[in-house]
Every structure is written in structure tokens, then in C-alpha cells.
């Protein structure tokens, strides 16, 4: 079943917000877990679109990249980025 962008976006946001008490950043694999039936490359397209719309952001350590909702977590405030 092909992913519909708006539905997939809502599911990802719901998943990420449901974990917001303990986590603000997620591995790509964690987010693929929301759509176990889908190809990972299709999930990636959805996430790319969400980054382009500035709903999600990338967080990079230089060796590992995580995805998070824009503005979530301490990082943005702590670095005076917002």
C-alpha cells in the first residue's frame, strides 16, 4: 500500500509526540517502525518532505543522525538557536 503523505505525516507526528516525555530525537529506524509494512525508502521520502516543510529537523553528531520535531527537546533553546 502506497503511503499517503498527509496520513503518514500525522502518524509520524503522533508517534513522536507520544514519546515526547522521554525522547526528543529518533533514529530513522524508529520512525520506520511506525510503518512496518512499507519500504524504508518510501518512509524516507515522507521524512524528507517533512524536513522540507520544517516540521521535522535533522540532528547530527557528525557520525549519527537523528530526526526530531522542530523545536522539541532542550537543544534548540540551550544553543540559543531559536
Amino acid at each position, binding site marked *: 500500500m502506497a503511503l499517503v503523505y498527509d496520513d503518514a505525516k500525522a502518524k509520524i507526528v503522533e508517534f513522536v509526540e507520544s514519546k515526547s516525555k522521554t525522547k526528543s530525537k529518533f533514529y530513522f529506524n524508529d520512525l520506520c517502525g511506525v510503518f512496518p509494512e512499507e519500504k*524504508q525508502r518510501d518512509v524516507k521520502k515522507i521524512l524528507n518532505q517533512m524536513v522540507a516543510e520544517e516540521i521535522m529537523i*535533522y*540532528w*547530527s553528531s*557528525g557520525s*549519527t*543522525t537523528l530526526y526530531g520535531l522542530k523545536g522539541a527537546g532542550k537543544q534548540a533553546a540551550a544553543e540559543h538557536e531559536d
Partner: protein
Amino acid sequence: MAKHKTPLLDQLESGPWPSFVSDIKDEAETRHKNPNGVDYQIPVDVCDDLLGILELSYVEGETHWKHGGIVGVFGYGGGVIGRYCDQPQAFPGVAHFHTVRVNQPSGMYYTSDYLRSIMDVWDRRGSGLTNMHGSTGDLVLLGTQTAQLEEIFFELTHNLNTDLGGSGGNLRTPSCCLGESRCEFACYDTQEMCHTLTNDYQDELHRPAFPYKFKFKFDGCPNGCVAAIARSDFSVIGTWRDKIRVDQKAVAAYVGGELAPNAGAYAGRDWGKFDIVAEIVNRCPSGCFQFEGGKVVINDKECVRCMHCINVMPRALRIGNDRGASILLGAKAPILDGPQMSSLLVPFISAEAPYDEVKEVIENIWDWWMEEGKNRERVGETMKRMGFQKLLEVTKRKPDPRNVWEPRHNPYIFWKEEDVTGGWTRDIDAYRKKHQR
């Protein structure tokens, strides 16, 4: 006078080697003098503060850098590595000190004008400090602030036709040896393949979705000038299927002393007369090289492509004419489980543009690794965990004797568990009833 006193760093300058401390001090001084009238966009004392915070770390024995962050250019998940210091009041010049990775041209060919243009951007919008090149090959620009990132990206892409490199869980900046541009040993056009795949896999390079890093490196021959076999997850190494071409007259010239072995590379000392038996025959790892009756005889079927004979007598021995590449998979550095070299997956593959065969292997591996790989697991670790046989299965390749180290080393590579009665486990008690120890 220096902004911060740095007695511990100063000591590093006293050794016999060129010191990075001296280099940073030079740059600090140049920035203050500003002989070229650069309109600095980040604090002029960035280099002073860099030395200051490093000195503090030496004094206290702990780092003042925080790791990572939400930095990057719009739409890119890699290419910029965020660095923030945790003492921004004391060292405002390095409150942000982000690294920008810039994709090097294939084979690292530059014009001096290009390098000057890069440095013009970097002197103005960054610290002026660089690392050329990083381990993966990028031009590494060290130290800028968040507000400059989009500006740098714009100037690089629009004025210099240059893109950012890779970082994070994505395809890292591919790199290659200089290949056919200068080297007669190159078995395929490494620069062309590196450039083509870099362009074709832009999404994988800039938008991370892999479990961890993934590196391509392209060596034109088994001499391995970019050390693909040791440093890249996906190592492409040039090879040939036919015979080493032998020019017996040139062999005689080497033996007779008219031609210098190793192209004269070891001419600095008197090593004595060139002795082909000692220098080549006895050093051939598979014993396939013989010197009989004044002529070289090579049993090419046994040749393991060590390149030694060709390197010693390049005028007499040349790579074969039926050329392509071998693909090996899984090299990594020793962060977990120790270092690992790549394992031979495809003994020979066409290395002609548009590289469809190579891309098919790559994409099959990615599909499998993205699905099965754990977070922060290199493909070489996935391969070890799930077995080389699994890798053959996902890449749709038949097992080949060259996939194993030696005959009978691991015959299980040819069978699946379901093909064998009882699978890989057995009831040892039931077995012992019938078979004594």
C-alpha cells in the same frame, strides 16, 4: 600579544615536528593584521579562543566541546558537524565552531584558483583553519558559526560548483585514486565512476536514512592508493581477467641492469645488482611467478593480484587487457569488534559507464542493510552477524570459491540451514549414543 596564555600548548611547539599550535597562532596573527582587508563575518579572535579553550582542556583534563547539534543547511542532513563550546562567555570566538565538509573533486585535482576561491570564502565566513583532507577525502573547513552556514553553502554551490560532503548515517563523500589520469596500472576510470555515483546517489549523500555511515572508495588497481579494502564499506578495486602482459626484452633489460627496478625508487642506497629471483620469484605470495631460462613465466590462474612484480618491473609487466573491478564489502575502523577489512563479494564486474551492474549490487545491499541493520551498525557488522551467505542471497549472487579464504575453509557458505538435515544444531547426547568420543 596573545589573548590567552597557553604554556601547555606552547610546549607542543618544541618537538621536532611541525606543530598545529604554531599554525593556529600564525592564523590568529594574520587575522588580527588582516593584510588583505577581509570583511570577517565571525569574530576575529576565533583562533585565539580556539587555543584558549584547548589550553583550558589541557589544564583541566576534560573537553569543553559539546558534541553535535541541530545544524545544517536547509534540506541537508549531513555535511555540517555542529560544535558548540560549553564556555561561550570566556571564549566567545568559539561559542559555535561548526565543521563544514566539502566534497573534494575526484582524484583531488584542483586549480590554484579554485583553492584560493575556497579560502576566500573560508577566511571571510569561517576561521580560516582547514584540514586537507579529512580521512574520507573531504576538504574539511574547521570552525564557523550557525548564521554563516547557508551563506557558505550558497557560495560553494553557486560560485564554485561544489557541494557539501557527507556526514551522519548516510553515504559519505565517495573518494577515488587518480586512476587513468596519471596511472598505467588503473584498470578502470576511477574518477568517472566516483563522480557518476556521487551524482547518482545525491539523496543518500545528503539525506541520512542509513543505520550508520557507508563509504564508497574506488581503487584503480590492487595497489590500493585510497586503501579501499581497509577504509570503505563498499570497496571497488580494479582487476583484470586475462594475463599479465610480459615484455621479455624489458625483463632482460631489468635483469641486465639497464632498467632500474621499481622505476628507480630505491636508488638512494647501494642495494646491489637486481636479483629477480630474490626480489620477485621468492616474494610472489602464490608462487606463480617463475624465471626460467632468462624468461619470465607466470601461472596467471594462481595470481592473487599482489602487484609486486608489476611494481618492481613496470616496463616489463603490465596489467591484462580484459579489465574490470572486484567488489569487496564491509571494511571498518576498530570502534566495535576491532578493525575489519572488506571481504570479496564480486570477483569481477564490468566497470564501464553507466555502471548499472555495480549500482544493482549497491542498491541490493542498501535495501537489505536498511531493513536489517541495527542502529549504528556498519554493513560489515551486519554481514558478520547474519552471515556472508545472507549477503550473497540478498545480492542475488551464486557462491564462488573466491568468496572463501581457502578451499574447505568454510564450506557452509554453499548450503542453507534448511538444506541440511537437522539444521546447524544437533542433539549431542543422541549423537554420543552412537558415536564414542
